[in-house]
């Protein structure tokens, strides 16, 4: 057993980070906030870079990698708050929806009673009839609400839940960094605020949540076990939402402004939590598992 990134996985993560930071850095993020709309050129570049075709076999023009690599890539997407229905389009590429793999086609999906980017998407997976627009809390994710069409099967695809958890992890990791940067630079009472334990301990707790969620998310990527995915989802949601909240707190008044990026992380984390469906369902999955065969823990 060696539960660590391989050299190839480290290299992949580095490459994806470079790509995203170069193509969707802070200036691009703020420009996107100022003029919303899906950047089709960016979408095609993501397609060319292989984000959507990552798990398609090479024989079909894909990259031929697995779920762990996809998780690393989506973690990076979460870090930079990459906009657009990237998870839905990635999954569509895996299902051979034409044009999804290359980024020619923008695919969205009904997830957790919502559809993201409905007006910009070329293809909608799931029944979006009767969709009503919301005034989305996240300036970078237009949302429609979809009425319950019955049938009971509202469960979200576990892989979508896992990739969403990976995005949450990336965001949580980023807000921890932003909080630490601010705590080192901002001075009050004649010293960096990060020297005060009240601030320091907020930051330490952020890191603890990130690293615990990281272990859960990476393990779920390796096993693809629904119970591991449910656990990863709960921990990653917690790390992202509470991380953004604490990051906001550490930033003080600046954290409450529109020009700070912190609120973008918080709002997106809220959107992703809903995308993964009802929290109760994940909790009940894990509760039911406790009554299952004792040996199941051996995993």
């Amino acid at each position, binding site marked *: *057993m*060696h*539960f*660590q*990134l*391989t050299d190839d*996985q480290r290299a992949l993560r580095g490459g994806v980070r470079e790509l995203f930071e170069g193509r969707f850095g802070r200036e691009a993020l703020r420009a996107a906030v100022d003029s919303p709309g899906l950047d089709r050129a960016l979408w095609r570049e993501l397609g060319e870079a292989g984000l959507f075709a990552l798990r398609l076999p090479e024989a079909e023009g894909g990259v031929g990698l697995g779920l*762990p690599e996809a998780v690393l890539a989506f973690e990076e997407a979460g870090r930079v708050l990459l906009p657009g229905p990237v998870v839905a389009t990635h999954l569509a590429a895996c299902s051979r929806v034409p044009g999804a793999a290359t980024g020619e086609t923008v695919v969205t999906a009904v997830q957790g009673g919502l559809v993201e980017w409905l007006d910009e998407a070329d293809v909608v997976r799931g029944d979006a009839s009767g969709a009503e627009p919301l005034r989305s809390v996240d300036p970078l994710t237009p949302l429609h609400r979809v009425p319950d069409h019955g049938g009971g099967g509202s469960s979200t695809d576990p892989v979508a839940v896992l990739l969403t958890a990976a995005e949450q992890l990336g965001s949580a990791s980023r807000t*921890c960094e932003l909080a*630490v940067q601010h*705590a*080192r630079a901002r001075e009050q009472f004649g*010293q*960096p605020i*990060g*020297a*005060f*334990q009240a*601030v*320091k*301990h907020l*930051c*330490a*707790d952020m*890191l*603890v949540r990130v*690293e*615990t*969620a*990281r*272990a*859960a998310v*990476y*393990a779920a*990527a*390796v*096993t693809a076990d629904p*119970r*591991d995915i*449910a*656990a*990863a989802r*709960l*921990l990653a949601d917690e790390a992202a939402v509470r991380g953004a909240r604490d990051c906001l707190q550490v930033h003080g008044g600046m954290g409450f402004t529109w020009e700070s990026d912190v609120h973008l992380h918080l709002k997106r984390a809220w959107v992703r939590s809903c995308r993964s469906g009802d929290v*109760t369902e*994940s*909790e*009940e*999955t*894990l*509760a*039911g*598992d*406790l*009554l299952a065969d*004792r040996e199941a*823990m051996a995993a």
Partner: protein
Amino acid sequence: MDLTYTPEEEDFRARLREWLAKVLPALPPKPSPADWPARRAYDLGWQRTLYDAGYAGLHWPADAGGQGATPTQHLIFLEETERAGAPYVGANFVGLLHAGPTIAAEGTPEQRARWLPPILRGKEVWCQGFSEPDAGSDLAALRTRARRDGDAYVVSGSKIWTSHAEVADWCELLVRTDPQAPRHRGITWLAMPMDAPGITVRPLTTLAGSAEFAEVFLDEVRVPVSHRVGEENDGWRVTMVTLSFERGTAFVGEVVACRRVLGELAREARKNGRWDDPVLRRRLGRLNAEFRALWRLTQWNVGEAERKSGVPGVGGSVFKLRYSHARQELYDAAADVLGVEALDLGRSWVPERLSSLSYTIAAGTSQIQRNIVAERILGLPKGR
């Protein structure tokens, strides 16, 4: 990222399981928790059994008499012994996890030859004399004084929270040898024989009603200079080696045990009807997520130790912070499952609920762990 075990690792696990199935039924009954001499004999007996089978000091380096096992093999060992219900490390804790590794890393060949084999063979018990009444979280404030007198140090002062003091043969002791030097540079590490004249042990009763640790009073106790490990006044550095060992490996078996308890709680709740309460179910579901993640974090940390050749890092602080709180939440949830029976000390999980309260304090309080995480991992400035 790989969570499958290699054929060699699986083989190690299979042989261990087979061996445990053979030896565990032949063990004597567990002694009463209040009977310290019997506990000592039981724990040393288990250590001897491990030694005879080649499992003693699994994670110790081979040149210290250990097996030089990989961190993954050590993980498998802790997992399987816990799952099989094998005895805990008990009275051998300080010897195997603190004093022994310190002597292995910093001792002279003579010191290693004198002290390490009896630890591995279950002959001698060690205790730890670090904390003092006025030096807890601020360990470097310790005041127990040692003055040189010929070929001995003469030690006076007092230590506290010393587990197994009543039955220990040796104490790994931190003393102040240079009161004038900066705090961290005037400390020395000594191996003190517990039968030396001038030592008084006074047991302390915990809130659980048990005597798990003691105060140790030292009045002009003579410790030979040859019992000093490391240089005089270099004891702080020598000690830091031990503390990281404590945080690196101490909780593996416990996470396995907590996951088992969680399953038992669910079954108990179904039996007594509380399972019908969705709030309780969801709480147990969240705890399942928590302990699954802690197990993965353990595997991750083991992978990291393997990558960085065996030295446990500050990642142990991240784990310890999360785990100690999760353990308390687990037993609080147990109280919810039990209802009024949670007030009955004779009920399972109730004594464990009480002892779980020490987890956010012992081996570095959560507040100190947060400082470590913030300063050493995140690079935040030291405060006042």
